[in-house]
C-alpha cells in the first residue's frame, strides 16, 4: 500500500527527515510517534503529495507520489481551520466528492452515510462552528470517510480535544477501520495513544528523523479504553515506545538520571519552518 524509501527532506540548511524507510501493508493501522518537531508532519505531507521531498521515494499503491494521490484523504489536527465555516456540515463532508463526479443527490447521500458512521446524523444541516471541538473533528473524519480513500492520513487528529473526547475519537478510528478496512497512518506525539490505536507503532528519532523503532502491537481485540490500557502487554509496549522516543536503546532502564538529562526533549526545538 505504502512504501517509503530513504526519504529525506530539508528546509534550507535544516534537515527534517534524514532517510526514512517505512512500509505499510494494506489494511494496517500504523501509528507514527516521535518527539515534537521531529518531522512527523513533513513525513505526512510528503506521503500526501502536499510537499515535494528533497530526496527518496514514496510509493502509494505502487505509484510514485508526484501530486496528491487519488485515493488518499488527510485529517488535520486543526479541525476548526480545516472545515469550511460558510458551508453546512453536510456540504463540508460532500465537498471532496466533487472530485469523484456523481450528481448532487448521490453526494448528499454519501455525506449522510458518513455522518452516521461517525455518530452525527443530526448535524448535517448545522454549521461547523455550531458544534463542539470533538464533534467538529468527527465531521472532518466523516469527510475523509465519505471520500472512501484507500489510505487515510491523520495528523495529530486528537491533539486539540479534551481527554474524554480523545478516547471517544480513538475508539471511533478503531471502529471505522474495522468497518471500512482502509489503511490508516496516524501521526501522534502521544505514546499511549499510539499503542492503544495502532497495529504497529513506528518511532521516529528527533530530526533529522529516521525510524528508530518499529513495534508490532498484539493486544486483544476489540480494544477497550480500560481493559487494554491495564493489559501487561500494553504497559510493556508503552514503556518500550517511551524509551525509543526518548532516544534510549530498547531495554535500557528509563530511570537512569544520565539518560534523562540527555533526552532529546531537553534540547531547544530547532527554529525551522514547521510543516
Amino acid at each position, binding site marked *: 500500500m505504502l512504501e517509503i524509501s530513504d526519504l529525506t527532506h530539508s528546509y534550507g540548511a535544516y534537515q527534517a527527515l534524514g532517510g526514512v524507510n517505512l512500509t505499510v501493508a494494506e489494511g494496517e493501522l500504523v501509528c507514527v510517534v516521535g518527539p515534537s518537531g521531529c518531522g512527523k508532519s513533513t513525513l505526512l505531507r510528503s506521503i500526501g503529495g*502536499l510537499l515535494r521531498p528533497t530526496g527518496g521515494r514514496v510509493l502509494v499503491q505502487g505509484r510514485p507520489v508526484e501530486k496528491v494521490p487519488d485515493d*488518499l484523504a488527510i485529517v*488535520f489536527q486543526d479541525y476548526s481551520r480545516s472545515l*469550511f465555516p*460558510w458551508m453546512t456540515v453536510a456540504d463540508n463532508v460532500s465537498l471532496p466528492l466533487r472530485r469523484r463526479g456523481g450528481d448532487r443527490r448521490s453526494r448528499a447521500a454519501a455525506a449522510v452515510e458518513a455522518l452516521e458512521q461517525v455518530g452525527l446524523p443530526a448535524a448535517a444541516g448545522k454549521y461547523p462552528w455550531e458544534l463542539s471541538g470533538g464533534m467538529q473533528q468527527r465531521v472532518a473524519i466523516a469527510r475523509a470517510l465519505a471520500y472512501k480513500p484507500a489510505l487515510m492520513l491523520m495528523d495529530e487528529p486528537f491533539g486539540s480535544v479534551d481527554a474524554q473526547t480523545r478516547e471517544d475519537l480513538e475508539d471511533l478510528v478503531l471502529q471505522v477501520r474495522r468497518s471500512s478496512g482502509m489503511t490508516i497512518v496516524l501521526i501522534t506525539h502521544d505514546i499511549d495513544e499510539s499503542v492503544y490505536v495502532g497495529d504497529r507503532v513506528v518511532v521516529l528519532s528527533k530530526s533529522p528523523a529516521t525510524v528508530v523503532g518499529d513495534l508490532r502491537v498484539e493486544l486483544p481485540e476489540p480494544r477497550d479504553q480500560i481493559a487494554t490500557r491495564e493489559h501487561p502487554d500494553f504497559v510493556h509496549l508503552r514503556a518500550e515506545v517511551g524509551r525509543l522516543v526518548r532516544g534510549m536503546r530498547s531495554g535500557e532502564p528509563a530511570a537512569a538520571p544520565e539518560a534523562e538529562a540527555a533526552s532529546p526533549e531537553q534540547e531547544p526545538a530547532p527554529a525551522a519552518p514547521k510543516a
Partner: protein
Amino acid sequence: MTNARRTLRGVLGVAGFLLVMEALGRTGIIDPYLIPLASTILTGAARLLANGEFLSQVGVTLSSCAIGLLLAAAVAVPLGTAMGTVPAVERSLRPLVEFLRPIPSLALLPLAMFLFLSGEQGKIALIVYTSCWPLLINTLYGLRDVDPLAKETLRSFGFGSYDVVRLVSLPSAAPFITTGVRIAASVALIVAVSVELVAGGDGIGVFVTQAASGNRRDVVLAATLWTGIIGLLVNSLLAKAESRLFRWHRARAGEEAL
C-alpha cells in the same frame, strides 16, 4: 445596550439638533434667510417626495452609481483575486496601485470629460475609477487572509489551484469583498454628486445647482438632506446584508456566542 434603546438615543440626538437649529433661527441668532429654518427644510424635503423632477434626478444619480459599481466590481474583484493569489502579480501591480489610489477623482474630471463623449459616461468612468480602490484593496486583503490550512485541506483531496480559489479562497474572502462593496457604494455616491455639481448633466447634483441658482436655499438643503439619507440607507442595507450572509464570519471572529 439594547438595539431599541440605541436607536432611541440616536433619534433623540437628531431631534435635539433640529430643535436647536430651529430655535437659533427663530430667535434670529442665525439669519433664517441665510440658513432656512429646520422646519422649512424638513417640509421642503417632504415636498420633494412629490416632485417628479427631483425623483427622476435621484434615479439618474442612483443608476450611474449602480452601473459604476458593477463595472468597478467586474474589474477590481478579478484583479484583486489575481493579486491576492499570485504574489508576483501583487508585487508588480502594487506600486502602480499605490500611485493611482490617492489621486482625487475630481482632479481627473477634465480628463474624463475630454475622453468620454457624454457627460454621463465621464461621470460613470470616474465612479468606476474611485470605487475600484476599496474593492481592490478589500479583495486583496480578503484573499491574503485565507487560512493556508483551509487551502491545504482542499489540495489534500486532489483539487487544483483553480478549484482552491473558487471553492475556498473566494468564499472565505467574500465578507471582505462585501465590505469593499459597501465602502465603494458610499464613495460612488459622493463622486456622482460631485461630478454633477461641477460638470452638470443630470442627477441630484444638477437639481441642487438649479435650486441654488434660483436662490432656493431651502430646496438646496432639502435635496442635500435626501442625499445624506440615501447614503445612510444604502450603507445600512448593505451592512445588514453582510451580517446576515456572513454569520459564519462573525461566529468565527468570536463576536457571536455559539
